[in-house]
């Protein structure tokens, strides 16, 4: 079931924490990923969208 095809063989010592690449360390922080996902959606979709709607000039009456 374990799909770690990049895991080192058992005979090798486990890597030191500082050897773990930056990307992997970032990916292992679920709450950071959660915050990033919420922030991007909140800024570019929801926030910008609300700004567009709320600043829409009223249509002139015929």
């Amino acid at each position: 079931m374990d799909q770690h095809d990049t895991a080192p063989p058992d005979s090798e010592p486990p890597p030191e924490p500082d050897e773990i690449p930056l990307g992997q360390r970032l990916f292992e922080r679920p709450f950071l990923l959660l915050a990033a996902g919420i922030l991007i959606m909140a800024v570019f979709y929801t926030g910008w969208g609300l700004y567009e709607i709320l600043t829409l000039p009223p249509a002139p009456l015929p």
Partner: protein
Amino acid sequence: MSASTSQAAIPSLFRTCPSTGLKVHDHAERLIRAHAVVATVMLLVGGIAALLVLLTRWQAIHLLDAVWFYRILTVHGMNMLIFFIIFFEMAVLLFAGPILLNCRMPAVKTAWGAFGLMVLGMLLVQWTMWTGQADVLFTSYVPLQAHSNFYLGVILFAVGTLITTGIFFATLVVAKREKTYEGSVPLVTFGALTAAIIAVITLLHGAAIYIPTWFWSMGMMEVDAQVYRMVWWGLGHSSQQINVAAMVSIWYLLATLTVGGVVLNQKVSRIAFVLYILFISMASAHHLLVDPGMGSAWKVWNTSYFMYMAVLASMIHGFTVPAGVEMGMRLRGFTQGFFGWLKRAPWGDPGFSSLVLSVVVFGFVGGITGVTFGTEQINIIAHNTLRIPGHFHATVVSGTAMAFMGLTWYVIPLIFRKRIAFYPLVKIQPYLFAFGMLLFSLAMTFAGTFGAPRRLWDMTYSGAPFDVQYSPAMDIIIAVMAIGGLMGIVGGGIYILATVWSVFFGKPLPEGKEAEYVGSIPLGLIRRPWTETPATDEDPEAPGRFGAVPGTVFLVAIFFVAFVVYYFANWALLSFTWQVG
């Protein structure tokens, strides 16, 4: 993965699965069962509604009157797109968390409370829909107004879902603290994490719009229709992106379970999931491409979501999953030619056939049409036509539901410890369901191209003060759509019959005796390819002229050709409709 000492202290709460070797926490298993059972009941209700809607949209029969058509269409949308899917997804989170991470289930009572809230919310929504107090369709666009209990039900359901999602996050913390796994979490759990994050984004938007709409339904405040549409789609479309992440996770899981598929590159697959986390929810803007209230910059930015980063992610998974299957097969000696591995694949294993059909129909039909309709200019000729449900039945039904069904054939023996009833029927179920839904989606897409509207009770507009002429081919296309839909419903019916019968009346599957039950459980559970040490005389990873996975490269090339042809054919269609010069 290594078990923690804390687990050894409370051994009675765990059992070791004889097939996978995973330690299964008792409460997690019970919760998975409860969510899966309710999801199946929701599928049954939504499926009956599907039949009624189909027999009404088929003009030759036109079964329901207008009031009941919109009522049943609401029932169909809510049960399929919200209740069935989300109950199943919560089961996936409960599996990918405590079980794949070999850890205990935290906050068990809270988890049951959340499940109760979800059920209560669902029942409230069902009551308002079936009693005609919520004929507002799945979108419930303001100013269409339902009974306040409809909105309250959705809010309760969403709160329950949010709590279960929170418990999944808590599981990640517990597993890390108690060191129940080594290294990074498994890829399937990472995919489930992606689904959980998108679920949080989705539910926050749901709360932001349904709470004010609930107050509005009681006459306590106003809700702007354009704001409603924009924020609601942050819920409505993003909820379907939870599906995508959950479905892709299941693809990886099924590839491992059925043929011992490998992950070609953990880094690439995880980057693709992170692209989903960051960019996929913005696809919600697709639904507002013809709305006059939103500017082009907002539309193009969000629908091109950072140069189609989420589309790139789907295409990465669309390559790595079949490539992982191919590599897994080649490692086991099936190295002949481009497609020797495909010919020798276990096509009689419903888990495997569901996986392949889900990948193919999701990618070729759902993916290509979705990206095409997400183009602002092309959207104008597709919006509100049958092309849109044609697209999302290929993604949500043929893709997500198909993958969920495929996983179910493994969940019944592994989690419920039962043999699968009506197994010969189950073996053909994926083909019947997938080909039926493929026919249905393609016919809808063609009908929409000829101008057939979506959602409408009577597409002939009888009694209207104007006349609408369709192509003479329309009646045939709608009939094909109906036949495809009926095939899909029969396939769905077999799924429900076999799962319900297996779970409630099925024969038990004694632990460790799987090999004695060939013909009543999937082949993957008998062969256990994930436990084999692959052996072959040739070096399967030695890249040939077309790389290490030439069959997948060839299939992906066909995909790109189909993509280009469909995309530019739509620009040609647009040029006929909207001539310049």
